[in-house]
């Protein structure tokens, strides 16, 4: 229930409407029923008092008119008058009692005339006392009566009556309010039923009204979801002129603009990639000719004079550099075109790490850099493309040698149940945070003013990153200025699986010492 309220705007709105209107209805019903009950009671009270006054007048008139000589005559008279009071009057159901006030000499024969069924508890002692103390006026009290096994409200009215010869009496009339109670009950029932029906109607109404507003919003939400999932053709129906239609129109306009922008960017970047690929390919044939020609000249440089000979050397070096750049450009354009198919094979990562280190050793030696290797005792088997991973590691190693300032480079290999990892760390110049953010960008160099001893193409790390992604692996970097840089490559053991965590720490343990 709470879950539904939290999730559905409609449910929340309907629930709030229900609670508020329920509260309003209960308040209104309570007030109505209270004032009705009050007015019923007041009008009945007036009637009751009138009737009692008439009854008292009748009894007193009758007694005064008769010439009473003795007790027996009084008794006879009273016995005839009092029962007649039960039926006279408008409302029928009343009971009568004529009681002799206490504290007077006993009349020998007198018997108080009391209506049958009258329960004397309906005439409380306090009332009798009040009646005796207020001669000439009517005194009343509300009571509760038992009628046909259920409690009904009633009124007892009393008045003192003075009989000549016989002394003080009190006349009591007991009225029940069953009819009024019943009417009130009827009204209350009607109110309750009406209120419930009203609540249901209000709920339905608020449900439909809310749906009317929420549904387009929901549709817009779903459409936005679809667009963010790449279904750029998703649109909302535009009907009418209201605010909902305005929402739909604005949404569609936004989606169209977005689609246009994305398509434009997409075609631009496709064109650009196509251009890089074409240029690279077109360059290959002249490059081959230049290379062959350069080799011939370079091979015969002893026959040239010193200036020409040196020129041949310079040209040869730059041709090689140009060739590396071209090869990297071609490689990256292959990735951009999605035309790379790796050859996965289940093999030992240690062996590939060893091969990469062996190929970089001449460079490390010339830079007087030591390479320390930490390998696990057992083989580290995983599914990967050895050529690409070796190239990637060579690249990381040559970067480490170039930026390591001659300090030792640490290569660590690790494995866990799902992944294998290599971490290449140097203790060299390191990089700032801003530099780190761009480290995998194409043609980006940490320090353009720095002398290039190794002469990378500027595409090495960009290609390495692509290689890692191709393997569904991670290539991550940690670096701090003057502390050094660590690159960690993590590969899943199976080419089709996903890595949860890397077996090696980054920054590496060696960097924390």
């Amino acid at each position, binding site marked *: 229930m709470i879950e539904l309220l939290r999730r559905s705007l409609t449910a929340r709105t309907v629930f709030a409407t229900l609670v508020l209107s329920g509260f309003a209805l209960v308040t209104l019903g309570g007030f109505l029923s209270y004032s009705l009950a009050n007015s019923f009671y007041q009008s009945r009270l007036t009637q009751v008092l009138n009737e009692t006054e008439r009854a008292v007048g009748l009894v007193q008139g009758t007694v005064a008119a008769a010439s009473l000589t003795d007790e027996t005559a009084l008794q006879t008279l009273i016995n005839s008058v009092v029962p007649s009071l039960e039926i006279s009057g408008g409302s029928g159901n009343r009971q009568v009692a004529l009681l002799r006030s206490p504290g007077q000499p006993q009349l020998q024969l007198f018997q108080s005339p009391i209506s049958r069924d009258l329960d004397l508890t309906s005439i409380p002692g306090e009332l009798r006392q009040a009646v005796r103390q207020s001669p000439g006026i009517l005194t009343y009290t509300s009571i509760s009566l038992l009628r046909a096994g259920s409690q009904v409200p009633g009124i007892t009215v009393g008045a003192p009556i003075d009989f000549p010869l016989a002394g003080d009496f009190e006349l009591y009339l007991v009225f029940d309010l069953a009819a009024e109670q019943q009417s009130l009950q009827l009204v209350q029932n009607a109110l309750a039923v009406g209120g419930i029906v009203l609540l249901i109607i209000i709920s339905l109404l608020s449900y439909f009204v809310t749906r009317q507003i929420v549904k387009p919003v929901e549709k817009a939400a779903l459409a936005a979801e679809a667009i963010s999932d790449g279904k750029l053709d998703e649109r909302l129906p535009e009907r009418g002129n209201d605010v909902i239609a305005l929402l739909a129109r604005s949404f569609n306009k936004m989606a169209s603009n977005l689609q246009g922008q994305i398509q434009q960017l997409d075609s631009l970047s496709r064109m650009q990639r196509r251009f890089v690929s074409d240029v690279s*390919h077109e360059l*290959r044939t002249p490059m081959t000719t230049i*290379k062959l020609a350069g*080799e*011939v000249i370079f091979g015969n440089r002893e026959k040239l004079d010193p200036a020409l000979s040196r020129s041949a050397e310079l040209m040869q070096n730059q041709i090689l550099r140009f060739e590396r750049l071209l090869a990297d450009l071609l490689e990256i354009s292959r990735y951009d075109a999605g*035309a790379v198919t790796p050859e996965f094979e289940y093999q030992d990562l240690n062996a590939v790490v060893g091969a990469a280190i062996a190929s970089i050793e001449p460079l490390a030696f010339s830079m007087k850099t030591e390479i320390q290797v930490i390998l696990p005792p057992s083989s580290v088997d995983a599914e990967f493309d050895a050529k690409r991973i070796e190239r990637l590691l060579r690249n990381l190693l040559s970067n480490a040698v170039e930026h390591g300032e001659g300090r030792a480079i640490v290569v660590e290999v690790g494995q866990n149940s799902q992944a294998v990892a290599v971490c290449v760390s140097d203790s060299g110049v390191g990089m700032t945070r801003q530099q780190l953010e761009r480290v995998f960008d194409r043609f980006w160099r940490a320090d353009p003013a720095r002398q290039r001893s190794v002469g990378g193409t500027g595409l090495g790390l960009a290609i390495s990153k692509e290689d890692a992604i191709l393997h569904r692996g991670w290539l991550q970097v940690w670096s701090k200025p003057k502390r050094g840089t660590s690159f960690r490559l993590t590969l899943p053991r199976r080419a089709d699986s996903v890595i949860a965590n890397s077996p090696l720490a980054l920054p590496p343990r060696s960097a924390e010492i």
Partner: protein
Amino acid sequence: MSQKILVVDDDDALREMVGLVLSGAGYNPVFAGDGISAVDVFTSHSPDLVLLDIMLPGQSGIEVCKQIRSKSGVPIIMLTARGDTEDVVLGLEAGADDYVVKPHNGAELLARVKARLRPLSADAAVVQIGSLVLDPQTFEVKRGAVSLSLTPLEFKLLHTLAAKPQQVFSREMLLEQVWGYQYKADTRLVNVHVQRLRSKIEVDAENPKIVMTVRGHGYRAGTEAS
């Protein structure tokens, strides 16, 4: 007498430059600039080896390769602008023996050419493999009285396997001993040529009895004798 090499490339400068490199190494280059004339020049000059560019006007290098193969087993080395596309496999399947990726250097090119023109060692003996008899002197393969036509490369491949029937040859070993590669090369060369060889010598190429695959290792000669 110097060996004649046909250079087929549509780029004039490159064609001439390759010619210079070949002349410098003592070969005698002849040239063709498109796919149509390539076949004519081949027929009129009957070169000892063909360097063939894949991207050619007229008809593609693949087509030229097929046509030359249909009448000769002369070594064909493809020059390809792309190292990793299906062009390589298509070229090998069309009958090319080897390929060189542009931009290549002179030494690399000459090494490939030399390897393809190197004859079998003189002391190579006549060997038998399955029902086949291989004569290295005449490059003849016979099943009984029937002569089978193999290219020199295919012959060398089969002879290498047959000479040591006890040995399993890895693809890398075959690349070194048959193709003359000193370093890691494309193992697809071996795969494609084993397929071509099987289609020529096996009774049922789907179920080879002469060149057997050893899963995970490479190939060996079949031991079946008939």
